[in-house]
């Protein structure tokens, strides 16, 4: 298909070399450019806005940092105040992880989802206990309950694992 613009340019090439643009045209264009520059003042280039934004950014970062630090401190304080909790965590966590890996190997996906739901509920209970520990009320009982929570997770996994392995063994024997 023929390019109409190209054809027109070729036909009027000579006229382009001869005719000059009128002077007022450039003045008008310059005037319009000035107006656009004046209207396009970006708010974010304002120095005050930049300073305010920096302050907000610093404050937000500092808040998050303090909150994170506090959380870490409270966890460390909890474990420092109750060494038996730390011991229980150190004892149970690897065993629970190992049992979980074993179940992942021999259990199916639906079963795993159910198990994860149950473990999530136990974790929620643990968090409730940890929160109530801040009452400093009957903390011995609560600490015992927190340790028992780890034990419950392990018992749950062991029970399921036993049944899965028993079934596997039955199938092999038959």
């Amino acid at each position, binding site marked *: 298909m023929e390019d109409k613009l190209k054809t027109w340019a070729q036909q009027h090439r000579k006229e382009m070399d001869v005719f000059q643009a009128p002077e007022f045209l450039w003045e008008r264009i310059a005037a319009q450019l000035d107006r656009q520059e004046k209207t396009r003042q970006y708010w974010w280039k304002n120095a005050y806005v930049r300073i305010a934004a920096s302050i907000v950014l610093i404050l937000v970062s500092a808040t998050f940092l303090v909150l994170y630090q506090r959380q870490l401190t409270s966890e460390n304080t909890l474990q420092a105040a109750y060494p038996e909790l730390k011991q229980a965590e150190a004892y149970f966590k690897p065993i629970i992880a190992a049992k979980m890996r074993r179940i992942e190997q021999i259990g199916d996906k639906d*079963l795993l989802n*159910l198990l994860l739901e*149950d473990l999530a*509920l136990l974790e929620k*209970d643990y968090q*409730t206990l940890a929160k*109530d520990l*801040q*009452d*400093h*009320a*009957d*903390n*011995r*009982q*609560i600490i015992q*309950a927190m340790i028992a929570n780890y034990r*419950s997770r392990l*018992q*749950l996994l062991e*029970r*399921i694992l036993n*049944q*899965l392995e028993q*079934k596997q063994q*039955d*199938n092999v024997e*038959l």
Partner: protein
Amino acid sequence: MWNYKILTGCLLWWCWTSKGNAFHRQATDPQEVRVSKKIAFDFKASPEIHIYLALKYAHIAVMGWAKDSVKVEAEIIATGMALTEANRILERVTLGYDYTPQKLHMQLEIASQQQIAKKNDNPLGNIMNGLVQSLISNPAPTHSTSADIDQHNLKILIHIRLPQGAIQQIENRYGSLELNGNFTGKLTAHLFYGNLKAEKLPYGQLEVSYGEAHFKHLSKATANFRQSSIKIERAGELNLQSSSTTLEIDSIASLWLDSRNDVATIKRAGKLNGKMQFSNLDVGQLGLESNLETHFGNLTVQKLLPSCTTLDVMARATNVKLEHLPSDTHYDIVVKPEKWQAPERLLRLERQPFEGLKGHVRLVWNEGNAKRKIAIENREGILIMK
């Protein structure tokens, strides 16, 4: 001379022994100090008053009575080795409340020790407005400053009398709840590390975790029991979700069950439907019908009553035991032949391969005039019929 020596010796012996005894008494029989705050109020109430309790460490006794009023008596008792210690424990516990004829709110707050320390800096901090403080035993030296609370040094007792139609919403952690009386209103209870005991409940929405619950008569309820031990003597309609719980039901008209890792014994059930995973369920007598989906675990049905019309079990890797095989029944069984134990005459029945399930067979037969249907599909599990 000798008399003098004997007398001096006796005196020294007496001094030594009496001093020793005195020390011993101090060490083993220390004088405890108990202090308490009491709150008591009553007011006229609507027969269907809404009760909201958000408590911790409280032993709550609720009594339904045939009056249009509410009466509350609460006592917080703190025990310490010194008056200061007991007071500090007591000071940390605040029982807030407000009421109108339509509602009663009560909540318990335990301030941290730091908050109490700050409060003590303020001379007005020790004033306990509206509370009666009673010193029960003799005052002891005020040297201790510990305000740690445990179940031995803090007791919160709350006794509430309510109109029987009251609608109750009770949350309690590390405490207990006991309901007595002929209630007609709904109870929503959330117990965490706490026990629940109820005589008669018309409608309940119950959540019990890490506790024991005992219901004499539960008409209709939705319940979620976790890590608990539950005993129900008589129930109407129960929608139950439970896990890692020991459940004992004497008699229930209709039970919908979603059970995980439970050990459940139901002596007599009318309708029994639902699903279970890794649970052991033992049903004594089944009165009407049962549709169950099981995944691992064990299921035993000891007896189907003549009124029973259906037992439909879809089992996966569950050991199913059906005792006292009824006559007048249509049987439809899918099982692995090597995992099926039954009377000799049944083992000789004609078997068809079951499509889509390798190694399984299907057996269909009638015994007498088939008034009921027993359908059991047991994939991978053992089926014992006797």
